C-alpha cells in the first residue's frame, strides 16, 4: 500500500455498472515525512475519507476486493484513514549497518 492525501473528488455519470454509487477521490501520493511525491491519481474509496485526510491506498487487483461480491474495474482504492504515523529513519551514517558481504575472489 502507499501513503497519500485526499486532494479532490471525481464525478462520472456514465461509468461501469459495478462502479455506480462508489466515491472516487483524487489522491496525492506522500512520503512518510508527508511531502508530495509522484503524480496524482484517482482511487475508489471504501472508508469515507474526506478532503485533506491522510490515507493509505492499495493498488492492483486487490483494489476491487473491498467491494466483493461486486468487482468494480478499479486499480487503486483507499483502504484506510491514517490517525498517526511514527517514523524513525536511521541517520545516514547507519546506512552501512547490515552491509552486503561480497565474497573475496579466491
Amino acid at each position, binding site marked *: *500500500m*502507499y*501513503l497519500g492525501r485526499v486532494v479532490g473528488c471525481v464525478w462520472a455519470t456514465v461509468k461501469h455498472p459495478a462502479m455506480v454509487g462508489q466515491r472516487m477521490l483524487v489522491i496525492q*501520493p506522500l*512520503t*512518510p515525512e508527508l511531502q508530495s*511525491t*509522484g503524480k496524482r491519481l484517482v482511487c475508489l474509496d*471504501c*472508508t*469515507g*475519507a474526506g478532503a485533506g485526510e491522510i490515507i*493509505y491506498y*492499495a*493498488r*492492483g*487487483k*486487490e*483494489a476491487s*476486493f*473491498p467491494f*466483493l461480491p461486486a468487482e468494480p474495474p478499479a486499480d487503486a*482504492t483507499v*483502504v*484506510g*484513514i*491514517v*490517525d*498517526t*504515523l*511514527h*517514523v*524513525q*529513519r*536511521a541517520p545516514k551514517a547507519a*546506512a*552501512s*549497518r*547490515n*552491509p*552486503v*558481504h*561480497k*565474497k*573475496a*575472489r579466491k
Partner: protein
Amino acid sequence: MLIARVIGDLVATQKHASHEGRKILLVQPLNLDGSDRGDAVVAFDAVDAGVGDRVLLVTEGFSAMTAVGRPQSPIDMAVIGFIDGIDLIPGVE
C-alpha cells in the same frame, strides 16, 4: 521480493475490516548498497518485524494476502521475513 528496512509504523482506526488486528509498517525499499530505492511504502506485518529491521518485502497481492492470512482482502504488500545477510558473487555491482 525486495530488500527493505522498517522505518516506522502507522495507526488507522477507520480502515477495511479485514485489516483489523494486524500491525501496519512503514517500509523503505533498499538497494544492495543500503541506499533508498524509491519512496517508502505501507506494508502489513507477517513476521512481527520492528523499526530498524532489514526485511524481505513482497509487493504482489496474492503473496501478501497469503502471508498475512487474510484472503480476499485489499492487501498488496507484506513483510515476510528478516534478512540476516546477503552474499554477492565477485564482480557484481
